[in-house]
């Protein structure tokens, strides 16, 4: 088995899975009907991407696991998503800003992964990129509208920014797993992705009249399976059916 590729696919797939689950929590609670539909549509795209990525991870691992068993039957330390995506939804401003940081990272990442020497990963990236561009357009328009909106909306999204900023550095986490895959031209350089992310974030935050916090607290751990307390609660809900009724199907 290609251990590093498997590990990387879990990181990629778990980001989609956990954020998709978080967004699905908005179903029926959106601030307006159109946003309720938008957030759940994005959730659906993310869960679809999860399916492709984890199904492939199962093949790479070669131990008989598929997308479902990887999504529903692992323990918290085996999930490799970044901490950003597991943060609670908060108000609409928090959800939108979390989404914006994530989309601004995923667009350049998928763009570069299209050139991966791994054919299946390149195909998944090509497919996902088209959807992610829509997500980025949606989230960045909202960040601008809320930031450059009323005093109330500005204050709320600025407070979301002060809170979430500390989780953004982990998006560009890179260890020996990445170094090996990078050397084999399977994944791009995290620094190159970060450069593109910074350009988008700066352009949108400027337009939105928002400012980046000056303190430099950074959190990481998710890529190594060390999560915030929130993941446990997500997994409890996500896995309940499969744990209570093993192998149940719709």
């Amino acid at each position, binding site marked *: 088995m290609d251990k590093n590729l498997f590990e990387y696919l879990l990181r990629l797939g778990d980001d989609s899975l956990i954020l998709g689950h978080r967004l699905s929590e908005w179903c029926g609670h959106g601030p307006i009907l*159109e*946003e309720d*539909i*938008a957030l759940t*549509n*994005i959730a*659906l*795209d*993310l*869960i*679809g*991407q999860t*399916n*492709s990525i984890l199904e492939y991870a199962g093949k790479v691992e070669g131990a008989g696991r598929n997308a479902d068993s990887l999504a529903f039957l692992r323990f918290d330390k085996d999930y490799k998503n970044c901490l950003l995506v597991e943060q609670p939804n908060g108000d609409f401003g928090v959800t939108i800003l979390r989404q914006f940081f994530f989309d601004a990272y995923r*667009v350049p990442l998928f763009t570069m992964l299209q050139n991966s020497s791994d*054919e*299946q990963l*390149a*195909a*998944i990236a*090509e*497919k*996902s*990129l*088209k*959807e992610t*561009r*829509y997500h*980025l*357009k*949606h989230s*960045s328009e909202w960040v601008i509208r809320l930031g450059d909106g009323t005093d109330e909306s500005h204050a709320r999204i600025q407070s979301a920014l002060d809170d979430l900023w500390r989780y953004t550095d982990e998006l560009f986490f890179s260890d020996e797993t990445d170094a090996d895959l990078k050397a084999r031209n399977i994944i791009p350089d995290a620094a190159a992705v970060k450069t593109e992310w910074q350009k*988008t974030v700066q*352009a*949108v935050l400027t*337009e939105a009249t928002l400012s980046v916090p000056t303190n430099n607290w950074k959190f990481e751990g998710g890529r190594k399976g060390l999560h915030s307390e929130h993941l446990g609660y997500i997994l409890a809900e996500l896995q309940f059916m499969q744990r209570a009724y093993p192998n149940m199907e719709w």
Partner: protein
Amino acid sequence: MVTEQEIWKYLTEVPDPEIPVLSVVDLGVVRKVDLSEDEIKVTITPTYSGCPAMKRMEDDIVEKLNEKGFGKVSVELVLSPAWTTDWITEEARIKLREYGIAPPENEPDKSVLFANPIVVPCPKCGSNNTRMVSQFGSTACKAHYQCNDCLEPFDYFKCLR
């Protein structure tokens, strides 16, 4: 011996479960038909990664070809080259409009973040005076619009490239 062309013709009888005026062929979802001695292999590609209709299309294709007398049918899902609305046939665009869904317009690249919104003509009255209500509509592939002249709310099959 059945020809590939005949299989393609049968596939035009398989409707998209969400937009039944279109067939899976109209939509550009069927990419390839392979005939071997005892098996028909149909290759399809998803519209959107999470499109819940894909499984249904797979089953419907198998069912249709079984019904036509072909016992062994397999459907393979491929991701690349990724589906684009450019593959929706000209005939299908007309059918969409008649059904009340505005077909995809020639949209600018999504990577241009602050591009001007595109004009989507109303499928009911043809007016260009319409507005986007939401980028995300009743299904992953559609956006929600409204006509400012006849007031009709309508779906727009958004451009994906």
